[in-house]
C-alpha cells in the first residue's frame, strides 16, 4: 500500500481547567496518545460514545483544536500546530462536514454563494467560481437551478449535499465526516451514504468518518478505531473488528446495536454494561475501562494496557485479551 496520506502519532489534546470560585482546576485528557493512519481512497471510522474523544481527535487534525502533544503528518509533512497562512493552505487539502447541515449554512446566503465562498477566499474569478459551483452541484446530484435558492428552500438531505459540495470546492484530499447522516431522515440517509461512497471512488478521497451508528460504520469504513476516554481501546480492519472483536468494550458496543430484525435481535446474547462513562476529570488510574469491564483482573487497576496484537486481526488494549 502507498504511504498514508494522514499519519497521526501519539496525539494528545489536554484541556486545562480554570481554577477559581466553584472550579477545581485540573486537566481533562480529551485525547491521550492516539495514533492512526488514513490512506487515499480509504475510510477510517472513529467510534465510541459521547465524550470518548472522537470529535476532538478529528478537530485536532483540521486545527479546530490545538494538539498539546504528538505529531500530525499530512502527505509526509508535519502540520502539527500550523498557524495563519500555512493553516489556511492546509484547509484546501482537509475539509470537514458536520452533522447538522442547517447550522452549517448561512440562512441568508444563496446556495451558490455558500459553495463559492472557499473559492472566493482562494482568489478564483467570478466566472470560474460560477462554473465550478454548477459542476459541484452536478457532482453531488443537485440541479443547477438550486444555486440561486436559499437553504430554507431545501430539504435536510439536499442541504447536506450542498455542504458536501462546498467541502469539495477546492478539491481536498481528506474529508472529515462528523456524523454526516445522523441528523437526516432515515429514508434520506442511504442517498447521502451512496453519494459519499461514489465520491470516494471517483475522487480517491480519504475519509475520517465519525459516527456512533455502527451499522453505518461497517458499511462505509475500511478500518475502525474504538476510543474510550480519549484512548484507543481497539483498532483494526472493519471485518475483524465486527466479526472477531477482542476488547470487551468493542464487544459490548457491538452487542448494544439493536438489529432491525426482531427474531435475530431477541435471540442474540447482549452484553449490557453497567454504569456510565467515568468522568474524564478523574479517569481510573489503570485501564480506563475498568469501572465497567466484565472481565477485569487485578493488574487492570494499576497499569494501563498498551495496544497489542490480539491475534484476531485487530489490536486491543486489554491485558486479558492480549495475554
Amino acid at each position, binding site marked *: 500500500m502507498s504511504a498514508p496520506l494522514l499519519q497521526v502519532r501519539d496525539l494528545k489534546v489536554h484541556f486545562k481547567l480554570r481554577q477559581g470560585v466553584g472550579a477545581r482546576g485540573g486537566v481533562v485528557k480529551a485525547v491521550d496518545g492516539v495514533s492512526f493512519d488514513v490512506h487515499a481512497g480509504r475510510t477510517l471510522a472513529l467510534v465510541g*460514545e459521547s465524550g470518548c474523544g472522537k470529535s476532538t481527535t478529528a478537530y485536532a487534525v483540521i486545527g479546530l483544536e490545538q494538539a498539546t502533544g504528538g505529531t500530525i503528518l499530512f502527505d509526509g509533512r508535519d502540520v502539527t500546530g500550523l498557524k495563519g497562512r500555512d493553516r489556511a493552505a492546509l484547509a484546501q487539502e482537509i475539509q470537514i462536514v458536520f452533522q447538522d447541515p442547517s447550522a452549517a449554512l448561512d440562512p441568508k446566503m444563496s446556495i451558490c454563494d455558500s459553495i463559492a465562498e472557499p473559492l472566493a477566499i482562494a482568489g478564483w474569478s467570478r466566472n470560474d467560481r460560477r462554473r465550478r459551483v454548477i459542476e459541484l452541484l452536478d457532482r453531488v446530484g443537485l440541479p443547477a437551478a438550486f444555486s440561486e435558492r436559499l437553504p430554507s428552500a431545501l430539504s435536510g438531505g439536499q442541504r447536506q449535499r450542498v455542504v458536501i459540495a462546498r467541502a469539495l470546492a477546492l478539491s481536498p484530499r481528506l474529508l472529515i465526516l462528523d456524523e454526516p447522516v445522523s441528523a437526516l431522515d432515515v429514508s434520506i*440517509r*442511504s442517498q447521502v451514504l451512496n453519494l459519499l*461512497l461514489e465520491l470516494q471512488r471517483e475522487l480517491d478521497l480519504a475519509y475520517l468518518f465519525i459516527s456512533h451508528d455502527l451499522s*453505518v460504520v*461497517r458499511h462505509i469504513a475500511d478500518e475502525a478505531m474504538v476510543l474510550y476516554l480519549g484512548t484507543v481501546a481497539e483498532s483494526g480492519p472493519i471485518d475483524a473488528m465486527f466479526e472477531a472483536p477482542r476488547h470487551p468494550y468493542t464487544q*459490548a458496543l457491538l452487542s448494544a446495536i439493536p438489529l432491525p430484525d426482531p427474531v435475530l*435481535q431477541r435471540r442474540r446474547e447482549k452484553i*449490557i454494561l453497567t454504569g456510565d462513562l467515568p468522568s474524564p476529570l478523574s479517569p481510573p488510574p489503570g485501564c480506563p475501562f475498568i469501572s465497567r469491564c466484565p472481565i477485569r483482573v487485578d493488574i487492570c487497576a494499576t497499569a494501563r494496557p498498551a495496544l497489542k496484537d490480539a491475534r484476531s486481526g485487530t489490536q486491543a488494549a486489554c491485558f486479558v485479551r492480549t495475554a
Partner: protein
Amino acid sequence: MMTPDAPVLAIDDLVIEIDGNRIVDHVSLAVGSGRILAIVGESGCGKSLTALSVLGLLPKAAEIRQGAIRLNGRDLTGLDEAALSQVRGNEATIIFQEPVASLNPLMRVGEQVEEALILHRGLSGKAARAEAIAMMTRVGIPDAARRARQYPFELSGGMCQRIMIASALICRPALLIADEPTTALDVTIQAQILDLMRRLREEVGTAIVLITHDMGVVADLADDVCVMYGGRIVESGPVEPIFAAPRHPYTKLLLATIPTLQGQRKAILRTIEGMVPSAGAWPDGCRFRSRCPLADGACLEPPPLALVEAGAFSSHAAACWHSARIEALA
C-alpha cells in the same frame, strides 16, 4: 365494566389539523395492558402529534377535528385542562427524547420523582420520598437516596432518562408514551434503557406507546407496529410480519435502506427517491405515491388500511392498492 382484554388506549379515527392541513389523517390504533406498540416514521409523519394528543399536549395551532381517544374506555378528547391534568402523570405519562431538557434544572431530582405522588395520591412528603427512592432504585439508579438530593446537571444523560422514567412510572400509570426515549443516548446506555423498559412493562404491566424512527429499537422492543407516512398509518400489525414480510412499499423500502451487519459492505444502498413532502404538499390519493416505484393510476384513490390476505397474522394490515405485488420491489 371493562372486559379483561379491552385496550388501555384506543385511538379511533383521529384527525388533527394545523392551519387547515391534515397532519394526522384518520388514525386508529390500540394498545393493551403490558403491550408495547411502536409508532414508526420519519419527521413530519404525524407520530409525535398523535402521541401528544393523548395527553392533551398538542401545540396551540393544532386542533383535533374528529375522532376519539379512549383511555381505559373514557374519551379524553372533550376533557378540559383541569380534568386532563388529573390524567397526566397519573393514569398516562410521557417521556421525551431529551431527558435533561425535560427535567426542571432548579429542582432536586428526587422531588421531581415524588411530585406526582403528592399531587395525585395525596401522599405526605416523607412517604412520597420513600416511594420515590424505591422507584429510583428499581429503574437502576445506584445509591438512590443520595442521588435524590442532586440536581439534573449532576447526573449523566442516561441517569436523567432513568429519573424521567421513574417519575413517569411512580403512579403506576396504565399508559406510558415514550417519544424517542433513547435517541439522545449512547448505544450502551440505550441498551440499558431498553432493557429497563422491557422489565418494567412485565413487572408493572404498563401499556407502552414507543415513538421512534429507529427500526432496530422497534425490532428489539415492540410487540406491535404502526408505520406512519404523511399523517396516515400505512401499515400495522405484529412486529414479526412487519419486518419479515412488509406489505407496504414504504415499510419495505425503509427497511431496505438501512445498512445491516450482514449486508455487502460499500455496496450501493437501496434508496427512496425524493423526500418527505412538507405538510400540505401531500399528493392526492396515496400520499406515498410521489416516491413509490409501484405507483400507477389506481393510487390516485387513497387506499384503505386493509387486512393482508392469507397472512399468518390476522391483524396485519397495509394501505396499498398493490400490496399483493410487493415482491416486485425486491
